Structure formats: C-alpha cells, structure tokens
C-alpha cells in the first residue's frame, strides 16, 4: 500500500526550494512580499510534515523510497528519502520552529535593504536541512550537509559590509569544512566497504561483517569528526560564538535549533555504526567523552561572557555536548529528546535576545542593560519561561530531557556524569546571571530608550514559550516519546526520583548562587561584575580558555612564521651575502635568480607553457586558404590508407588477379 505519507513526503523539501527560486528571480519585484513566499514555503512544508509525524506517532511503518540515480552495467547507486520516527521528529523541529522564525524575521529584518535576499537564503537553508534529515543515504545527506554549510556561511556574512561578519563567516566555513573532510572520508570508506551509499545496506553490512569491524568503527569515528565540526564540539567549537555576527533569526534557526543539531542527528542516524563493538564500543565512548568535555567547558566559558548572544552561543555548545553525551552513554532516546526540547527553548531564548537587541537599539552588552522587565514585558515573560526550561526546572521541557541524559550517564559512565552535573549547575547559574543583568534592577546605560518589539515578533515568542513549557511533559507522558523514537530494544529510562531530585537540586543551587551574586543587590552602573573577585580564573574564562589564541599559536602562527622564516632566509641569503662578498655574490644571486626563473618557475610553468605554445603553433595550421585545408584532408586520408594497409595482413587487388 502506498500510503499518503509516501505520496506527499517528497514535496517537503521542494516547497522551500521553489520559494528560493521564486525569490531569487522575482525578489526585486516582490520586495516585502518575498517574505510571504518564504513563509508559505516553510509553512507548506510544515503542513506536509504534520501528517507524516502523526502517522509515525500512530505506529505507521517507516516509509523508504529509493530510485536509481546512476545505473551503468553492474554499478548502481540508489538515492531516495525515508520517513521514520527520527526523521519525523526532525521534520517537525525544522518546519515548526522554522515557520515561527521566518515570521519573526519579518519584524526583525524589516528595515534591511537586502530583505528579499535574506529570505531567499533562509528558504534555501530550509530546503538543504530538510534534504539532510529526509535522505536515506549518505550522498544526499552530504549534499544537504554542505548545503546548510553554504547557507550558514552566506547568512553569517549577511551583513558583509562589517569586516567582523566576513571574518566570522570565513572562520565558520573553514572550521566546519575541516570536519566535513572527516565526514567525506567516512562516506568514502563506507562506500568502499559496502559498495553502497544508502543507510540500510551499509548498516546491514556493518552488522554482519566481522572481518571489517575495525574499519567500520574507523568510519564511525570519521563521521563523528564531521559531527564535531557541524555541532561545534570540542575542539572545533570555536566558530559558533563568532557566528553570532549574523542576524539573530539566523542564530536562532541555524546556530541553535537546526543546523548545529545536524551533527547530533548524524550520530543518531548512524547509531548502528557507533554501536559496533558491543558493551565497550569505542566510538560511543569517544562521543560520550567529547560531549561531556564540551558540555562542561562551554558552560564555564558562558559564565564569564557579557555579550547577550555569546552567552547563548556557549550555552548552545554546552547543550549540544549534552546531547552527544546522551547518545554516547547509550541514551539514544534521551539524546534525541534533548535535541527536540533544546531546539524549542533555545530558539525561544535567541529570538528573545533578538527582541532585546532590537528594543535596545542593537546594543548587545549586558552590562549596559538592566531593568528591561518594565520596558519589554512580553519579551521578559517568554524569556523567563525559556530560562526555566534551559535551567532544568520541572515541569518545563529542559528538565525531562536533561534528567534522562543524566540518568543514563549515571548508569554507564560516572566521570562523564560528573561533567554533566557540573555543566547543569553552571547552566542554571549563568542563565540566572543573564536574567538579572538584562531584566533585573535598573537600566545601567541611561542613554538608550528601550521599547517592546512588534507583535510579529512577540507572537512567535509566545508560541515557542508555550511549546517550551509543555513539550517535555507531553512527551514523557506514558513514555510516549520513547515509544516513538528508540533504537533497537532499548528499554525506556525509568523516571527515578533520586536522579530527578539531584538534577533539580543542582539547578536550584545554580539559581541560588546567581540570586546571591546578582539578584539580592541588583547591579548598578557603577558596580563591577561580582565574578571579577575570582580573579585570574575569570580572565581565563572570559578569554574562552584561550582557544582562539591556542589555535593562533599552534596552527596559524607557525604557518605564517615558517613563511616568514623562509622569506627572511631568502632576504638574508641574498642581501647578507651581497654585503659580505660583493661582486661574487652578485653573480651568485644572478645564478640564483636564473635558477629561480628558469628552473623553478620553469618547471612549474613548463607544462602550462608547452601546452599554450603548442596551441599557438597549431593554430598556424589554419592558414585561411581553403586549398591548404583540402591538402590536410587528402594527406590525412592517404596516411590513414597507408597505415591501415601496412598493418593489414596481406596486399592483393582482386581486379588484377
């Protein structure tokens, strides 16, 4: 039976794609209406995803449609799409949150001269992201993967007149591309091992091939390297904070809710590979440790940031680490669950911060804010819900998923559990700090007149707040989410009061500390940040563990320095010897120069030059006189005849017999 899911699903990524082309071609004519086109595209995708999701929730069999892409002789490559519960959840996340962010963007981007181009890029991003999650093979997934990377690059550098934005875009592109190399290598390795790019055959082969198990594990780790780049995990996390240079809706959609979660999705999707090796799966421990370290490290950095969006950026890195941690300790459901809840409340927080930034006239320094609760009541209340959800206060969304992850970690890997718990404490602390700095007390910079954002922005905030509040409890109810998304026969995580108690206590502790430092006596304009008391450590955190400097010293500087040393050597070699030995060195330098011009450059250019010169020489064959052309033609025929007869077996003319 071809179900309706199969009939409609292929349209999902095509709607935003169509929107992209329409805006691209008619953007100048459509102007503001291009937003409508984009919203129609993504909302249409949502409308088609919803029935798919409902079908999956009701226990519909997964749909998997393949068609041959290239088929020559024995070589066949199939492409296609699939809708299974994991994909359905991702579809809902992308299209629902996407629709809300698109609507919000109408308000946020309203004065931008490149309004339509923004929506074109966003639509293209939606298309690439949907392709990524719907693909049933690594090839299309990779196309989507690079597609979202490209859109991320274009959107981070959207305000390209700002040099910092261009730098951030370039950095994001290069760093994630480092990870992509790993992914591409992993896909090549898998194709080499199995002769296929589709998920199911690869996972089957991985399961039944015991000879190549090590190679499959290697492929899993290579794929994880791709995920590390895209999901900004340690040590490739450095691009995400800088990516905040892009417009805030971009930060919310791409750098919080969807694209950065693609890495987590990739690990979840390739879980059969990561699981190889049974109880002590190496790949999974790598995932768990990287996730744990990232969660903790990013949370410590977030504590000491003053830029409202940077705090959220580090928080995102930390939470992505959490998801990885969850997947790594065997909590497949928990990791995906956290991906979903996080998408909602982090999108909410980013959009809220966007609203604050817009209302505060594009000032992002929290030290200048304060007391915005009065000026921006809608923003405040929705932000407050997002804050509680992120901090993990029951019964809001974040609590349930974080709780499940901690539960799994406690059972399987205690050191990682400690990292996770510490990150949870820090999370509730830095979010409390942010709440008080932005909304509490009195405004510290009096020159700025804050105002509430328009409804087109606050209504999406309210909807997201609603989801952030209830989605956790809805999904946990009767283990609903676990029945939907699970891996193999994984048992549901039982709700244990002790873990819940611990995690709530940790969260409350963090909030308490935050209140003690920032809430009890609100910061006034003259006060300095109480955190400065911890001295060196604060500087260390504020400088993000000196990662940028580290990379600068370890990777970029040596490159530049070696270039400079070579230059210096060259200079001294020529200059110094000229001063020393005078005339002899002039000859030497000449020789050197000649060598350089004729041998070094020569070798490099030889191939090119020879080709060019042959081209130049050959053109003179074309003399312009038609009879020379005929000569060439006749000579060619005669040569062919002679050659063929010469190689022929014997010569005899039947007419002369």
């Amino acid at each position, binding site marked *: 039976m071809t179900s309706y899911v199969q009939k409609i699903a292929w349209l999902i990524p095509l709607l935003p794609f169509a929107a992209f082309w329409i805006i691209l071609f008619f953007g100048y004519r459509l102007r503001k209406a291009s937003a409508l086109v984009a919203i129609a595209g993504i909302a249409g995708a949502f409308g088609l995803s919803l029935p798919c999701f409902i079908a999956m929730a009701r226990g519909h069999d997964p749909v998997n449609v393949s068609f041959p892409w290239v088929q020559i002789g024995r070589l066949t490559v199939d492409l296609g799409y699939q809708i299974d519960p994991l994909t359905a959840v991702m579809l809902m996340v992308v299209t629902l949150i996407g629709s809300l962010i698109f609507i919000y963007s109408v308000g946020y981007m309203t004065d931008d001269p490149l309004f339509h181009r923004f929506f074109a890029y966003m639509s293209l991003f939606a298309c690439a992201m949907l392709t990524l999650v719907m693909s049933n093979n690594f090839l299309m997934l990779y196309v989507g993967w690079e597609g979202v990377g490209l859109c991320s690059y274009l959107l981070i550098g959207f305000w390209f007149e700002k040099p910092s934005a261009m730098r951030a875009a370039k950095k994001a592109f290069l760093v994630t591309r480092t990870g992509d190399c790993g992914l591409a290598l992993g896909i090549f390795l898998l194709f080499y091992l199995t002769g296929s790019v589709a998920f199911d055959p690869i996972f089957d082969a991985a399961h039944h091939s015991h000879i190549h198990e090590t190679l499959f594990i290697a492929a899993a780790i290579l794929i994880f390297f791709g995920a590390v780049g895209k999901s900004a995990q340690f040590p490739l996390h450095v691009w995400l904070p800088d990516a905040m240079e892009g417009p805030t809706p971009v930060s919310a959609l791409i750098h919080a809710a969807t694209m950065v979660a693609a890495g987590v999705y990739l690990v979840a999707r390739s879980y059969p590979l990561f699981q190889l090796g049974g109880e002590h799966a190496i790949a999974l421990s790598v995932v768990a440790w990287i996730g744990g370290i990232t969660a903790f490290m990013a949370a410590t950095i977030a504590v000491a940031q003053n830029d409202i969006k940077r705090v959220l950026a580090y928080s995102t890195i930390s939470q992505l680490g959490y998801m990885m941690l969850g997947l790594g300790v065997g909590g497949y459901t928990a990791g995906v669950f956290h991906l979903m809840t996080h998408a909602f409340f982090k999108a909410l927080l980013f959009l809220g911060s966007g609203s604050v930034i817009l209302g505060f006239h594009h000032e992002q320094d929290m030290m200048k804010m304060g007391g915005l609760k009065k000026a921006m009541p809608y923003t405040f209340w929705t932000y407050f819900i997002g804050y509680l959800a992120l901090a993990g206060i029951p019964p809001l969304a974040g609590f349930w998923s974080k709780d499940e992850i901690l539960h799994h970690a406690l059972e399987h890997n205690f050191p990682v559990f400690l990292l996770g718990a510490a990150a949870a404490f820090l999370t509730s602390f830095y979010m409390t700090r942010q709440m008080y700095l932005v909304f509490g007390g009195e405004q510290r910079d009096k020159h700025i007149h804050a105002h509430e954002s328009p409804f087109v922005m606050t209504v999406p905030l309210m909807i997201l707040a609603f989801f952030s509040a209830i989605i956790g409890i809805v999904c946990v109810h009767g283990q609903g989410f676990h029945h939907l998304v699970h891996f193999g026969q994984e048992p549901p995580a039982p709700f244990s009061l002790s873990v819940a108690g611990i995690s709530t206590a940790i969260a409350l502790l963090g909030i308490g500390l935050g209140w003690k430092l920032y809430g009890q006596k609100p910061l006034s304009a003259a006060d300095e940040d109480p955190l400065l008391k911890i001295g060196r450590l604060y500087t260390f955190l504020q400088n993000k563990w000196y990662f940028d400097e580290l990379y600068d010293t370890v990777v970029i500087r040596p490159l530049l320095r070696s270039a400079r040393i070579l230059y210096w050597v060259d200079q001294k070699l020529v200059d110094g010897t000229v001063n020393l030995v005078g005339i002899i060195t002039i000859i030497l330098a000449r020789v050197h120069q000649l060598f350089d011009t004729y041998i070094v450059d020569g070798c490099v250019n030889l191939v090119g030059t020879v080709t060019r010169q042959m*081209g130049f020489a050959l053109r003179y064959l074309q003399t312009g006189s038609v009879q020379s052309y005929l000569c060439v*033609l006749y000579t060619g025929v005669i040569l062919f*005849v002679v050659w063929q007869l010469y190689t022929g077996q014997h010569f005899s003319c039947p007419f002369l017999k």
Partner: protein
Amino acid sequence: MSGDFGSVIGPVAPEIILCVLGLLLLVAGMFLPAHRKATIIFWTCLVGLGTALCSCVMVLAAIALSPEPLQMPNWLGATLRVDEFALVLKILINLATILTILISPEYIQHRLTAGRSEYFPLVVFAALGMTLLVSATDLITIYVAMELTSLVSYVLVGYMKRDPKSTEAGMKYFLVGAASSAIMLYGMSLTYGMTGATDLASIRRAIAELGSPEPMVLVGLILMVAGFGFKLAAAPFHMWAPEAYEGGPTPIVALISVGPKMAGIAVLLHVLEIGFPEIRDHWSALIAAIAAISMVLGNLTAIPQKNIKRMLAYSSIGQIGYILIGVASLPQSMNDWRTSGIIVYLLVYAFMNIGAFAVVTAVSNAGLSDDIEDYRGLAQSSPLLAVALLVFLASLAGLPPTAGLWGKALIFGAAIYSGFTWLAVVGVACSVVSVFYYFNVVRVMFFLKATTPHTFRNTHLLTAGIIIAITGTLFIGVYPEPFIAMARVGQDIVAAR
C-alpha cells in the same frame, strides 16, 4: 490497404511531417502578406517541428511497447531502418532544431536584409536531412540524405549575403564539403564494387564471404569515414569548422555544431556496426586515432583563440573526439557503457553547445562583437547570460554538477572497458587542458570590468531557449538516471546483427 495506412507511413511519419512542413513554408513565403509573414512562418515552423518531435516520441513508444520488432513498410525496401537508437537521435535532432528556431528571430531581424522567409524552411530541410541520415542503411540513401543536409548548411552558413565573413565561410564550407563528399562517393563506389550491394546488411554478408580482409574494402571504408568525418568536423577533416563557425549566422552555427554531429555519429555507427563488423579491429584503431587527433588538436588550438565562436569551434572538434572514443570502443553486447555513453553525451552536448551559442547570439544581439574581449564584465551587465554561459562552459569542461560530467564519465568508462585506456588518459588530459580556455572566458566575464556598459534586452523566445538549455544541462547533471535508462533502450540495437 487504407486500414493499415498507419503502418505504411507510420515509421517515417517524422520525415514526412518535416518534408511537408518545409515545402509548405516555402510556398507560404511567396503568398503571405509581407507584414504578417515573419510571425506566421515562425510559429508554423515551431508548431510543425513540435509535431515532428511528438511523432518521433509516438513511434518510439510504439516500438518500445510492441513485443515483435517493427515491420518496415515494403515500399522503403532496405533503405531506412527505424529503431530505438535512430528514434532517440531523431528526438534530439528535432529538439536541437527547435532550440535553434527559438534563438533565431531576433538575430535574423538584425542581420538579414533579404531572404528572411526562406530561412526557416531551409532549417527545416536541414533537420529533414539529418533525421533521414540517422535512419539510412543504404549507401544511396546515406549519400542523398547527407547531401540534403550539407547543401542546406552551405547556403545557411553563407546566408548573410552582404557580410564578407559569412560569404567566405559559406564558400570554404562548400568547397571542403563538396571535395570530401566526392571522396566519400569514391569510397562508396569501391565498396559497391567489392560487395555488389549498396545496403549495409548485404555488404556485411558479402564481406563475410570474402573471408580475409580485402584491402579495397578497407580503402573504401576509410574514404567513406573521411566523408563522415567531414560532417563530424573530426580532425583531420575539420579544417572548415573554425571558419564556418566564425563567419556563419550564430543560430545556424548552433545547429550545425550539434545536428550533423548526431546524424554523423548515427550513420557512422550504422555503417561500421551493420556493414563492417567483420573488420572491427581495423576501423576501431582508425576511429581511435581520429578521436585522439581531434581531442588533442581541438583542445590545444582552442587555447589561443580570441573569437568566442572560433574557440567554440575548436572546442567542438575536441568534443567530437570524446564521442568518437565511444564509437571506437567495443560493441554494446560486451560493454554496457558504450551506447549509453554516446547517446547521453550527444544529448548533453546538444543542450550545452546550443546553450553556449544562444548566449553568444544574445550578446551579439546587444551590439557586441564575438571577441572574448567584449565579454568583459558580462556578469554585471547581464547576470543571467553570464551565469548561463558559466553553466554551459562548466558542462563542456565536464565539471560537476553539470551534465557534461556524466557524458565524459560514461565515455571514458566505455574506453577503459574496451582496453582503450590510453584514449581515456588522453581524454582526461584534454579535459584538464580545456578547463584552461573555458575558464578564461569565465574570468573575463566575472573578474574584469566592462569598458562601456551595455543594456541587454532579449526577447522571451531567446531567454526561453537559454533557460531550456540550462535546465537540461543541470537536470541531467543532478539526476542522470532517466537519460542513461533512455539510452539503454537502444542497447543491443547498435550491436551487430
């Protein structure tokens, strides 16, 4: 008799439609009122070509769906053979002609002072010659069909009577063409003398009876291949091409750079595979040599060219070299890649080459010359044209995600399967060289500033033609399977029988 009228003329319906259309347009040109003439003739021509295209598709469907092989009507004898391979090529030829018609009106409006109403029927007759040629399996039919195509092409290339370049191009094209058709005829007469037959199947039987390869058969074949090589513009029979391309009206150049190649490849395959399979070793080495010379010569000489049409002429000499690799390789029964490679390459080539010439037409409609120098800053003055040309050139160079990649991949695959690894290596090396001169144009368009700004105002027809070509190039590039499958329809058709 009237009951099976369909089966009597059905298989040759496309040719009959084209013939009637051409005659109708010629006559209509004499009687229609002057002010309405151009519009009526243009649209009739377009509709007629569309009908011919549809009839090709219908005959193809009828053949593909019916269980038993198609019975050719008696009155045709063994002169024509309508099979899947021929029909796919006929569809391509009609498509190429439609694209040519689409990009023509504005150009001839600018450039022609007289004879505008005869232009379209002549193009239709050229298409008729080519469609006949892909089906022809008798030496006489091959000769007549080829002359029909050639004579019309000479006239069309020299059609701009007041333009010395066009006149010269027509003259040179004619002289080389007439001389090489005489050579081909001499080859045909020798073949006839050795075998006592003119239809390819009988020729094959006679050669098989002769036993050991007779040198005269070989000489006859080489002389015929020289004639086909002229149609294909394969080196060393290519010398007319740069001049004809540079001087001829651009839309016509688009057609003659594509249509005769399809027809020529079809007739070459038919003659070699149906008529001369017994001496495969000989001709496959011969074709391989021609392919290698064409690739090297075309791609190298294209580098220093200053005129874009001349550059594209050399590029198309190189391109035919790639396609000839497919002809030289082993037959389909031993080599899955061959027919798919040839057909996909021809299809892709039709889109990308006509597309490139369409952009050249659009640029020259704006009053610019064909010098590559005049393409400076095209990216600013007309982004659509610049991006379109970028896509077509990337495809000609065989870069992903364009269709050219698949054509080259299949052809080189076929070569390697047939033991022609050296040809594949030469082909890849030439592709690398070709990137050099194709991207020189891209560099000029995108990175140099225009000296004087030009406004581009193209008709919807021309834009439509360019967009069809882009869509084809990119769609086949992204999703090649349907086209490879379509090529597979004619899999064992080209195989020897």
